[in-house]
């Protein structure tokens, strides 16, 4: 495994291994694309030959047509933009609160003893159950969506941060202290990078849940957004637009988590969890 010659140049084996890795990655993306395409192909086939009634589930081609029309007239982008803005704001609030609470309860045992039972009791309540009280508090505006996204995303962020801080290596902290680390250096050069392998995946999961929550909120308590699009299309019997909205939600969610995973792999390249 080591480059025993001590030269910085890569050995032939290492080059071969890298080539192999790249090939594998290509193959894996390829396999992913093949999986997705087959899914749509089978769906298309089942609707074309009439196994599935087009009234109950339109074909992918019809859905793509509906998406195209909405993209051209601009309504898709307006709804998508509204949903993205809401999830961004709610998620940001969840990160601020979740990370802050996770930090203090991970650092001070006493705080955790008070805080954790409260959080563990609030956590199992699904965001859907919060909707009546959310409407009571915030009405039918953007604030209701922010709040529901916040509720969905804050718990995984908190748990991840708490776990990361509790798992910090005592010796690494001591090493930093005896080397004379200033508080800012302790935070930015030790605490933050040491926590990221646990905090970033937690944030990715939180964003996924937030994305589901925003759609839920928009089904009931909004006048724009992908959830609203689905709900309104249902009332107008535009089944193609309903499924087009669903497909958009799925694809955007997939893209978000793929981008975050790529960032994780870069930032946490050193961590055992990212090496296979």
């Amino acid at each position, binding site marked *: 495994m*080591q480059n025993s010659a*001590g030269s910085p140049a890569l050995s032939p084996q290492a080059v071969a291994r890298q080539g192999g890795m790249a090939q594998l990655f290509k193959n894996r993306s390829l396999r992913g694309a093949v999986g997705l395409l087959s899914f749509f192909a089978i769906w298309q086939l089942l609707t074309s030959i009439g196994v599935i009634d087009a009234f109950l589930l339109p074909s992918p081609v019809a859905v793509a047509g509906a998406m195209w029309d909405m993209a051209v007239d601009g309504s898709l982008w307006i709804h998508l933009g509204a949903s993205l803005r809401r999830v961004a704001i709610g998620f940001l609030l969840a990160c601020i609160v979740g990370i802050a609470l996770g930090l203090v309860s991970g650092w001070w045992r006493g705080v955790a003893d008070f805080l954790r039972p409260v959080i563990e009791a609030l956590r199992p309540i699904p965001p859907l159950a919060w909707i009546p009280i959310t409407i009571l508090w915030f009405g039918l505006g953007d604030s209701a969506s922010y709040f529901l996204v916040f509720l969905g995303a804050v718990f995984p962020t908190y748990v991840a941060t708490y776990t990361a801080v509790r798992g910090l290596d005592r*010796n690494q902290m*001591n*090493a930093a*202290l005896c*080397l004379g680390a*200033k508080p800012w*250096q302790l935070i930015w050069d*030790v605490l933050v990078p040491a926590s990221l392998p646990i905090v970033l995946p937690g944030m990715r999961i939180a964003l996924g849940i937030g994305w589901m929550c925003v759609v839920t909120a928009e089904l009931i308590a909004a006048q724009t957004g992908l959830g609203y699009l689905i709900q309104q299309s249902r009332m107008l019997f535009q089944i193609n637009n309903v499924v087009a909205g669903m497909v958009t939600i799925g694809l955007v969610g997939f893209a978000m988590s793929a981008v975050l995973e790529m960032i994780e792999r870069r930032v946490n390249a050193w961590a055992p969890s990212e090496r296979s």
Partner: protein
Amino acid sequence: MMQTIIASDTPSTAVPVQIDIRHVGKVFGGKGGDSAVIALDDVNLTIRKGEFISLLGPSGCGKSTLLGIVAGFQGVSSGKIEQNGRPILRPEPSRTVVFQDYALFGWMTVQQNVEFGLKAKGMAKRERAAIARELIALVRLSGFEDKYPHQISGGMKQRAAIARALAPDPDILLMDEPFGALDAQTRVLLQEEIARISSEAGKTVLFVTHGIDEAVFLADRVVVMSPRPGRVRQEVNVPLPRPRTAEMRSDPWFVQTVNELWETLKPEWQKGEEE
């Protein structure tokens, strides 16, 4: 023959005292309760500038606790501990530590790890890069500056950790069983390396170990501790010249001293195994 002496009779009184440990006691757990464990009991030790001290003893004798107290990671329950006449209150870059598990920062390259203590001092980028490169050369890791800890072997990690600990130019280097996690061959090689590095860098060293031959091979003075409660039971001066080299392991005095220490420590080691 083995010399057993008391700390205050240490020769070369002209050399200034660097670390002064007086009647230090350390109790873990509830005060006076049944759960209280006496980790250290009335420990006295004087470390002079430039000395290499091995703290030798079986597990549970409090040697790592004593090192943690010297580092400033934990306080004393009784007694006092001073560095150059001032009480030790917290960790400081004048006393850096090398840990058994290396405790390198996994997200930094070897170079960045070594620069950490220099960055803390507020040193300019170019200057600290140059100093770090010199230290990496001193521990013979040149060419591995840009590797991450997970890309190098255990022995190389410990070399990097030693360079990192030397970077702030400490008065004393505290080593907590630094070779405990390494295989036997790497351990022997690194013992010779640390013998060379410590005399080249001219540092005071406090070296915690449970290896008798390692303790005697490296030290000017071996401080033997006994467990439950942790106490200093004897001190052995090592007259072997510096720098220490591999052939000194077959020196008659070395062989005899290691055997005698083994004979005296055997009952305690056996006691530790039974518990």
